[in-house]
């Protein structure tokens, strides 16, 4: 366009004209620049807007991919006796193991360099039993002479200034140095971190008879700082299980410590028991004695003096033996790896049919993917339900108990693995094989607890009676496991949407049809912007009013509100039948605005009637107290059921009488004068009403007899911030949207259709319902979809008025927790890139996809409608 032709012949003697015919350079430059800027800006905005979805998805993806091996190494270490245990320090520089002679072996993980470490001086005795706490800090040694000793293995880090670092350190790699005993890591130009090993060994304690070897041991520390207690469980070579507790008291005056010990025997343990492991829970209230064959003797040790054999169960039926057994964090879940390669997780659950002493039963909650070779070692995480299992074939698998997934499969060698250790921060694994190799992996397992199945399916959480859908993202205790199922939140969103739409659609559509077809365009010009103003009310205001004003009002007048559902429509119908009695001249003259004002008055008046009838209504329908009634403990449900079925019965009755006798009735009325006909119609309506009332009561009786009770379903325990209130408040947000769009659609139906219909003798009503509405149907439908989109995404109303409890019930009197509200409440507290943070992004993505899909669907339908309307 910019290239204006300049070839035109300019008249002689007018050179100025020639010049002006040439397009100025600046014009071309500006034009090109504008062209580019607008193109780049426009496309940029479109890309940016679509980038939202990409960005959200990119944050969410690691939830499902997550785990990776960052690096791996292996080193040859000095051969020695088989290690009893192995731990890794918090900074992943040292792997420390203890063998049966009490010697401590430590090596630098990255290079395999051995360090000199202090040893436990066991006085030359042989360790016949050994156990440790989950963090590997507290150890217990049992000896063949029936004594036991407790020890502590402290692998700790401290930060020191460079000045305090000893000279002539040996360089190990880029960051690490050693003096032969500890590892020094440079963390800043001025400071270094030292990781060193220290051991402590307690006094000898005799628990088993002298000379009887202890074959298995476990212990827990408890009590307070002033009065520490130690609880032991030992099994000796004679098959006697002993439960002991020592309590130390320090005399405040003398400073002398006295230790008392109480002891009792575990009943019911066979003499030839082959104990593989002993396990004691944190509070020392449960003891598990595991035989090699997989038999578990579970003791209830809440009473120390009188432990009770609560349950005996074979968890590994058949030939298989236990290869590895251990608790997960929290010490409720028991992992058992068998020689058949199986890895299962059990926990104790209260069961009504449990044939056990304490009503609990060990339940296999998770069956994990089995190894191909016998399981020989395991180690559990100190932060979550992550654990590693290793098999005789040299495979090391990282698993998560709750999500039942194998997060990583690592293959060390073909050699059998002796011990495996998981770093405290879940970021590294060291496995020591029987042939003296140490294999180390740096791993990253940020989100082992989430899979598609845990997010959208039922998950069996520790201590839950059955697999469940739960959202509970945080709690006070360390052992707490976040329960991140999106289903209750999606359900909450849908529940709010459904109840809001149940309220909004009839009102919005009714109002739209009335505005478009039955009022003067001057009235419409006032009414429509008024309704549209409602759309611009900030939702925080709606939420505030709903929660602080509406909720208490609804709670007080709940019966009146239910009453209004009956009285208001009935009042309007009555008004209509009375209006029919008017002579036609009056009816016509005042058919416009005056009639609407009359309807308005009728509405307000019936509202007041409902308000006044409230207490009476509550007595009849809800046995005098709706809140007590709704819990199902008080009164009958027949009247309410009748109320629910009444509209359907009435409609059915009305339709059937219309079909059967309506035609003849109409004929008769047509001959009569208007008032008489109106009276007859009124009579018919009242008759139908009464008949419908009786019929629906009978129907309700029948329904109740066959066991249908709305209580426990759509009505149940009343809470103040409930779905009814949310539905009302959301109505303010949704009604104007549905109203405006559907009114536009109705109004866009071409005038000639209306004219033709009226011209054929149809009334306004017939035209509206049988001509205009069907034509505009797709537009109306898309209006509903757009309204639904708004309800799905509405945030502040549900944050403030919905109570935010993630429930899975349709009860209209209970609260809900919607996706959007959940994001608003939890995201400000979520740590960046944590699982919760990504889960909330997933919630946002879900919302985005839901609303985008609904809106696109609506838009496509609307476009089709426009095209069709244009063709008509």
């Amino acid at each position, binding site marked *: 366009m910019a290239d204006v032709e300049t070839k035109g012949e300019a008249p002689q003697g007018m050179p100025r004209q020639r010049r002006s015919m040439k397009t100025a350079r600046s014009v071309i430059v500006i034009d090109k620049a504008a062209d580019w800027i*607008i193109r780049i800006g426009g496309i940029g905005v479109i890309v940016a807007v679509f980038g939202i979805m990409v960005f959200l998805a990119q944050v969410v993806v690691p939830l499902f991919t997550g785990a990776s091996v960052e690096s791996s190494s292996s080193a040859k270490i000095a051969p020695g006796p088989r290690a009893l245990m192995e731990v890794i320090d918090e900074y992943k520089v040292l792997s420390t193991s203890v063998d049966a002679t009490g010697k401590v072996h430590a090596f630098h993980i990255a290079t395999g360099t051995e360090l000199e470490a202090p040893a436990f001086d066991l006085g030359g005795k042989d360790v016949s039993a050994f156990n440790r706490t989950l963090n590997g800090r507290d150890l217990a040694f049992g000896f063949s002479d029936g004594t036991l000793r407790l020890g502590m293995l402290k692998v700790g880090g401290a930060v020191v200034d460079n000045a305090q670092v000893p000279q002539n350190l040996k360089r190990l790699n880029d960051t690490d140095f050693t003096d032969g005993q500890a590892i020094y890591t440079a963390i800043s130009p001025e400071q270094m971190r030292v990781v060193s090993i220290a051991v402590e060994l307690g006094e000898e304690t005799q628990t088993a008879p002298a000379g009887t070897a202890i074959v298995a041991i476990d212990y827990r520390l408890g009590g307070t700082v002033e009065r520490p207690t130690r609880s032991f469980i030992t099994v000796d070579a004679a098959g006697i299980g002993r439960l002991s507790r020592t309590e130390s008291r320090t005399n405040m005056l003398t400073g002398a410590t006295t230790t008392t010990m109480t002891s009792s025997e575990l009943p019911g343990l066979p003499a030839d028991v082959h104990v593989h492991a002993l396990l004691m829970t944190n509070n020392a209230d449960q003891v598990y004695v595991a035989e090699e064959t997989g038999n578990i003797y579970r003791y209830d040790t809440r009473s120390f003096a009188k432990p009770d054999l609560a349950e005996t169960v074979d968890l590994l039926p058949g030939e298989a033996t236990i290869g590895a057994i251990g608790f997960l964090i929290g010490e409720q879940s028991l992992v058992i790896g068998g020689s058949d390669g199986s890895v299962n997780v059990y926990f104790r659950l209260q069961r009504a049919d449990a044939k056990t002493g304490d009503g609990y039963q060990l339940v296999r909650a998770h069956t994990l993917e089995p190894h191909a070779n016998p399981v020989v070692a395991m180690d559990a995480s100190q932060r979550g339900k992550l654990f590693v299992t290793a098999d005789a074939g040299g495979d090391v698998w990282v698993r998560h108990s709750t999500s039942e997934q194998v997060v990583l499969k690592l293959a060390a060698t073909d050699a059998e693995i002796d011990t495996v250790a998981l770093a405290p921060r879940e970021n590294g694994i060291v496995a020591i094989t029987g042939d003296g190799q140490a294999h180390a992996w740096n791993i990253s397992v940020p989100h082992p607890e989430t899979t598609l199945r845990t997010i959208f399916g039922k998950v069996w959480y520790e201590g839950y009676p059955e697999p469940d859908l739960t959202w509970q993202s945080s709690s006070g205790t360390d052992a707490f496991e976040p329960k991140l199922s999106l289903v209750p939140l999606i359900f909450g969103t849908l529940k709010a949407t459904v109840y809001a739409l149940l309220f909004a659609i009839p009102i919005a559509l009714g*109002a739209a049809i009335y505005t478009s077809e039955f009022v*003067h365009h001057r009235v419409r010009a006032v009414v429509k912007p008024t309704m549209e103003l409602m759309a611009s009310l900030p939702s925080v205001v709606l939420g505030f009013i709903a929660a602080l004003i509406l909720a208490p009002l609804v709670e007080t007048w709940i019966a009146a509100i239910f009453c209004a559902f009956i009285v208001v429509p009935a009042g309007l119908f009555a008004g209509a039948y009375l209006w029919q009695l008017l002579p036609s001249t009056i009816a016509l003259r005042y058919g416009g605005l005056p009639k609407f004002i009359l309807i*308005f008055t009728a*509405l307000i008046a019936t509202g007041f009637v409902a308000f006044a009838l409230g207490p009476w209504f509550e007595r009849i329908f809800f046995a005098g107290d709706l809140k007590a009634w709704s819990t199902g403990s008080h009164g009958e449900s027949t009247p309410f059921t009748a109320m629910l079925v009444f509209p359907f019965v009435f409609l059915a009755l009305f339709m059937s009488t219309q079909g059967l006798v309506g035609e003849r009735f109409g004929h008769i009325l047509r001959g009569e004068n208007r008032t008489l006909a109106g009276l007859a119609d009124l009579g018919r309506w009242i008759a139908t009403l009464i008949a419908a009332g009786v019929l629906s009561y009978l129907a309700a009786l029948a329904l109740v007899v066959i066991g249908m009770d709305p209580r426990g379903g759509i009505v149940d325990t009343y809470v103040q911030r409930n779905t009814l209130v949310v539905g009302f408040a959301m109505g303010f947000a949704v009604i104007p949207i549905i109203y405006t769009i559907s009114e536009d659609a109705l109004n866009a139906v071409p005038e000639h259709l209306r004219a033709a219909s009226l011209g054929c003798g149809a009334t306004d009503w017939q035209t509206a*319902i049988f001509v205009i509405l069907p034509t505009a149907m797709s537009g109306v439908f898309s209006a509903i979809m757009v309204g639904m989109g708004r309800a799905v*995404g509405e945030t502040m109303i549900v944050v403030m008025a919905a109570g935010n409890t993630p429930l899975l019930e349709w009860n209209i009197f209970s609260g809900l927790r919607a996706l959007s509200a959940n994001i608003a409440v939890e995201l400000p507290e979520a740590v960046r890139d944590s699982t919760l943070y990504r889960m909330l992004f997933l919630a946002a993505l879900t919302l985005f996809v839901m609303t985008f899909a609904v809106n696109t669907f609506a838009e496509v339908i609307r476009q089709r409608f426009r095209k069709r309307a244009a063709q008509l």
Partner: protein
Amino acid sequence: MGVIAETTQENRTPAAVGAAIRRTDMRARGEPALWVLGGALALGIAMIAGFLALVAWNGILTFIPKPIDVVTQADGTVTAGEPFREELFRPDAEVLEALTPEWRARIAAADGYTSRTLYRTGNFDLYGEDFRWIPDFTVTKRERPANVLFIERLEWGPFVGSIKSATIDGAERQIASLDDPAFVAAHRMSRQRWAQANDIEKDEIGAINHKLEAARLDLRGVELDSGRDSTDYRQAQARVEADAAVQRGNYDKLAVQVEDLRRLNAANTVTFVAVGGEEKTEEMAHLVRFYPANDLSFGGKIAVYFSRWAEFLGDEPREANTEGGVLPAIFGTAAMTLLMVIAVAPFGVMTALYLREYAKQGRLVSIVRISVNNLAGVPSIVYGVFGLGFFAYTLGGSIDALFYPERLPNPTFGTGGLLWSALTLALLTVPVVIVATEEALAAVPRSMREGSLACGASKWQTIRNIVLPRAMPGIMTGIILAMARGAGEVAPLMLVGVVKLAPELPVDGLFPFVHLERSFMHLGFHIYDVGFQSRNAEAGKPMVFVTTMLLISLIFVMNVVAIVIRNRLRRKFAGSQF
């Protein structure tokens, strides 16, 4: 009703009408259904009208000074307070037992219900409560003595009681009336000194702190650049220390000034006495406003009313936002909305121009158009999540790493703030602007464009001189609607930078004057916060209503302007809609 139906009715002769109607089947008119439809519309209108009336009623009446009742109960307790609201309740059986027979009969007659009144007693520091329910049956006497004052203080909420004595410049004296000139002057003086001390603390001492902080950051920057052992660092350190010494000197001077003012103020006190006889001495400087609630002339009421409005609109909040003003929130809302418009207007218009004038109209463009349209329906919280993840954490984090390494690990742009809020809302509202602008562009007749091009104008010249001016009202409508939507959004802001109480405004006198990284206060969030997060939701409720009214009127004004412009536009280019 359609136009056609109307004219047909008018053209009928009365006789014809009668005849026609008589032969019409009742069912065909659908009168009952019609009433239900009309009822739906009536309900919709009643909802909006009721809602607005509720907000306006509460909002307008909140600041009217209310009388104070002094209530004596049967057990001798005397309570003074503003009657706040009344409600019916059902007293427990034990309570009923203890009542006189006639009260019991009265309650039994009312189905077990009787009424009680909530009094705003104030005096939180004395009673440990702001409100007290008093059942009617316990009341033996209710009076409105003229000498009871309602005193609004800086701390502890209002005080209800009377003046016992006053100390002016250290000398105790009796106050005859509130109009006592010495008292009035002393109070005014105290308030002025208080304001002055506040100004010094906030502006001048604030500026010194700002400078000290800037110097510290400079030093840290040098340290990061050239290390702690470098000469640069030592030089910078010396410079900073010298500077800091000067600043500290200034600080001490100012601190002395503030101390002086405070000391002077401490000599002006008033001792109040509550109805129960408890005394409380307050500095005059801490008395915001006081009036004899039961002895207030009409003019006095008006004065209190407007002075409260002035405080509300022009002051900072106090008492955990439940009292005082909302100026920072108004300011924050305005600043954020303006910034949003600056971002959204050019980009929205550009995109619409691209879609309508530059892009080849094909399937792809219509898909893009539908999608852009739908983005208006994507929940605002999703934009908030995006804003937090992308703008604050990703973009802001990078900006911090690049430009503000000396401030790390404290985030500068790497957390929510004004800029990110404005950009998030810009993204949220850009579809509104795009759709409105596109509609406006489409309404410009093709012939005008062609005419312009035929005259030799370039494409850009055509757009600038012909298309944009004609589309301008439509574009303005879109922008105003976007502003209205943006100003009312709260959910995304909760994630990207709005706070309960911002210590500093985003614009102030310190370089660089506009602090885009600061978090800010917002009217909408203020409503949420005061209504839901405050210690005493009941005490905050009136405030919330006023804030609500302010926010709604702000948004309504914008919407009405947009609707007026739209209507004018439609009239101008009638027939070109859709």
